[in-house]
């Protein structure tokens, strides 16, 4: 079994066991256990996200690059809109001369 998978399984099992124990404990024990349980929950979530992100290819710089490309395409659209408007006006004037 892959090391990451093994770690996820261990964390998951520990979480289930700890939560069963927490839920069957007295109120005083729950107060003491709560920070540990919360930390385990958060570590477990963060570990899953970290492993998923190993598959992420797009960087923050590339997100910026995509914004620039969008601006370029938007400005091409404005240019083309303008040209169409000129074409319409020219056609209109031509019919009047």
């Amino acid at each position, binding site marked *: 079994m892959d090391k990451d998978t093994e770690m996820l399984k261990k964390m998951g099992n520990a979480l289930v066991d700890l939560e069963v124990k927490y839920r069957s404990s007295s109120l005083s024990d729950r107060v003491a256990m709560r920070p540990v349980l919360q930390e385990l929950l958060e570590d477990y979530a963060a570990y899953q996200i970290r492993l998923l992100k190993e598959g992420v290819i797009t960087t923050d710089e590339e997100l910026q690059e995509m914004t620039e490309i*969008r601006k370029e*395409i938007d400005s091409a659209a404005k240019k083309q809109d303008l040209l169409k408007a000129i074409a319409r006006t020219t056609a209109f004037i031509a019919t009047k001369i």
Partner: protein
Amino acid sequence: MRKRRILSFNHLLILLIVLISGCNEEKAEAIKVSAEKFRIEATSALEKINYLMSQSVSTPSESNQTKLDNIVELLIAEETINSEKLSELIAAEDINVGALTIIDEGLQKIERSYYQFESMFRSLPRGSYFAKNAVAKAEKFAINLTMEMINFANFIHSKYPVQFTGRRISILEKINAAKSETNPELKKKYMKLIAEDIMLLRLDERKAKEDAILQCLKAAEAGKLVANLIRDYGKLNANDLLNSVSTSFGFISEISNQNQDVENLIKKFDSLATTIREDPYWNTLLDEPIIQ
């Protein structure tokens, strides 16, 4: 007379450009629609991954009556109550809020790339004539985001152990309660009900895993389509591009089919990943190695 000739010449020239841009407009529309489809499928895949991860940090769902009974039991058993213990009673259900936030924020960050990708093409049909170069620049993002979805499918398929924590906790609690039952008839009855819960949980966990994998592969197919459309933008006519869109959308619908063989699909997309990695053209656009 001269004025009329000048106007006619201008008219023809601009009309020609407008006509050419009209032809490009259909192709641009095909890219825009496909990029939207890619974003929709990718965000849906991330929602399914979010569901898997949220379930992994879930707590058992209980009726209000059960919650009330639990509080009463705890209050009776406790000799003294201070503000810390009261806070524990009040915030008992919020124990996984921090973990859920980590998952939401982590996935939202990934999701932004797909929205950003889609937004690039929003005004493309209106700027189809002048935006060719910008479209070409967008190709590498189509390839990289497609590879991301294949990576996510592989991660869930081969690395991720799905665990619906809340339901597992409930089952363990039921088992512990049934174990202390002294009447053998009742004990057997309880265990049978628990066995049914276990089988249902097994099915639900497996289905959620398969749903997430299939959705990632649907998104990968949509991403591959956008990459192909961009690559062939200058080479193919509008009809050819529209045929590609129609074929690919058809395949995406087929992936939704409940009877899909996940193993075969994973193999198919692994082979697509290998093709991209080994293709001298695609390879240059790829930023990172592929997870297999």
